[in-house]
C-alpha cells in the first residue's frame, strides 16, 4: 500500500523560525532517522518527500458550479497547515504509524493513496 504522510502544524516542535540552530539540527536529524528507519524496514520504501513553503505562499483552486476560482492562501483555514509530506510504500497501517514515531513531533495525517493499478 502507498501512504501519503502529511506533517501538519508545529505540534511539540515549535515554529521553525523560533528554533535555535541546535534545535533545527536535532529536527533535521530526526528526519534523517526516519529516512534510515524506512530504508531498513523490509517492505517499506520512501517514494518521495518534500518540505513545503509557508501556507501564506499557497494558491488554492476551487471549482463551484463549473466555475474555477483561484485564491490566495491554503485550502485549510485552520491553524494546522501542511509543512511537508512523504510518500511511503508500506505493507500496512501499523508499520507506517510506527515509523512516523521517529519523526519530529509534528501532527501527522496518514492517508492511503488510491492505487490506479
Amino acid at each position, binding site marked *: *500500500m502507498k*501512504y501519503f504522510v502529511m506533517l501538519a502544524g508545529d505540534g511539540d516542535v515549535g515554529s521553525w523560525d523560533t528554533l535555535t540552530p541546535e534545535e533545527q539540527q536535532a529536527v533535521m536529524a530526526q528526519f534523517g532517522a526516519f529516512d534510515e528507519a524506512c530504508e531498513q524496514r523490509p*517492505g517499506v520504501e520512501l517514494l518521495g518527500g518534500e518540505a513545503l513553503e509557508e501556507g501564506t505562499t499557497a494558491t488554492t483552486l476551487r471549482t463551484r458550479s463549473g466555475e474555477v476560482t483561484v485564491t490566495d492562501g491554503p485550502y485549510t483555514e485552520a491553524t494546522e497547515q501542511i509543512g511537508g509530506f512523504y510518500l511511503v510504500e*508500506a*505493507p*500496512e*497501517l*501499523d*508499520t507506517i*504509524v510506527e515509523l512516523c514515531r521517529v519523526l519530529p513531533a509534528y501532527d501527522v495525517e*496518514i492517508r*492511503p493513496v*488510491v*492505487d*490506479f*493499478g
Partner: protein
Amino acid sequence: MLVARTRRLDLAEDALSEAFARASDRWPTGGVPVNPAGWLYTTASRLVIGGLRAEAIHGRKVRLLAVDAGWVAPASVDELDTLDDERVALILLCCHPAVHPEARAPLALRLVVGTSTEEIARLHLVSVATMAARITRAKKKIVIAGIPLSSPVDDELRARLDGVCRTIYLAFTAGYAPARGANLLRDDLAGEAVELAAILHGLVPDAPQARALYALVLLQHARRDARVRDGNLVTLSDQDRSLWYDEELSAGMELVASLAPSEGYAEELRLQGFIACEHARASTAEDTDWSAIASHYLRLEALTGSPVVTLNRAVAVAESEGAQAGLAVLSGLDEALPHNHRLPAVRAELARRAGKIDLARASYDQALGRCTNDVERAHLLAQRNTLDQAH
C-alpha cells in the same frame, strides 16, 4: 482505468464484507474455524480472485485487502497455537486505535460473538441503518487504510489490551444500565460482553486486566435476575439473593483472589472486583462489610480521581458510618457531576435517612429532572411519594 480500479476496490471491500458476513452466519452455529483470521482472509481472497477471474493475480493486487501481512498465519507458528492467537488478533483488530471508538464494541460483537447487526443496533439504541453504516464504515476503514491483524506476540498487543478491556466493559455496562428507554437491564448484551471477556481471558490468561475484567463482569452479571422485579428496579439491599447465580459468583471470587496487585486499568478492575466480592460474600444485605467496601472505594478514588467513584464511596460510608457521614462525602461533587441523576438520587436517599426531609424532596426532584431511564424514574417517584406520605 479509473472505472477498472474502482471496481476492484469495491471488489476487495465487498469480498471482505462478505467474508465477515459468512463468518457471522457460520461461526456461532458451526463453530469457529481452526484459523478464523486465515479463514476470513482466504474466503475474501477467493471472492476477490473469483471476481477478477482471468486477470492475473499479482501478489500486490490481492494486497488490496491490506491486512495480508498480519492476516496470513505465520508459517513458523505452531498450528495448534494459532487458534487462540488469531482470535485475540480479531478482537484487537476491532479495537485498533484507528477504528472509530463507537464502532469498536459493535464490530467486536459482530465478528467475535456473531451478534446480528439488527440486534447490535437495538442494543445500542440506534437504528439498524445507523448501526449498519457504522459497521460498514469501520470495515471499509480497516480495508482501505490497511489496518493489520496484529501478531498477538507483539508488545503492541499488550499495550492495546487495556483498550480492549475498556471496550468490552463498555459493552457490558451498556447492557447493565442502559441510559434511556423502558428496560432497566439488557442482560442479553451484558451476557455477550461477559462471553467476550471470557474469550479474552482464555486467550491471554496471564494478562491481569483481562482476568480482572472477566472476574468483575462475572460477579456483576451473576445478580442479573435479582435486579428487576415486575419491571421495577430492585436495589442491591432488597434483592432476593437466592436468585444470584452462585457458581458464577464463586468463579468470579476465585479469579479475584488470584489477582496480584497491579497498576493502571488492571488495578482499577481488581479493586472493583474486591467490591463485587464483598457483596457476593454477604448472605444477607445486613451482613455486607460496608467499611471494607468504603476502603476499597477510597483506593479506587485515589487511583482514578473519578467523581463517580466518590459517589459510590459516599453510599458505602453512609452504610458503615451513617447517613450524615455519607452526605459529607457528597459535598463538592455537584460541580464534577452536573448532569448525573445518581448524585441527587443518592443525596435524597441519605437525606431521608438523616431526617432532612426538605433536602430529600428537593434532591428527588432534581434526580427526576435528570433521569431518562423509565424504570429508574418510577423507582425515584415511588421513593419521593413515600416521603410525602410519611410527612
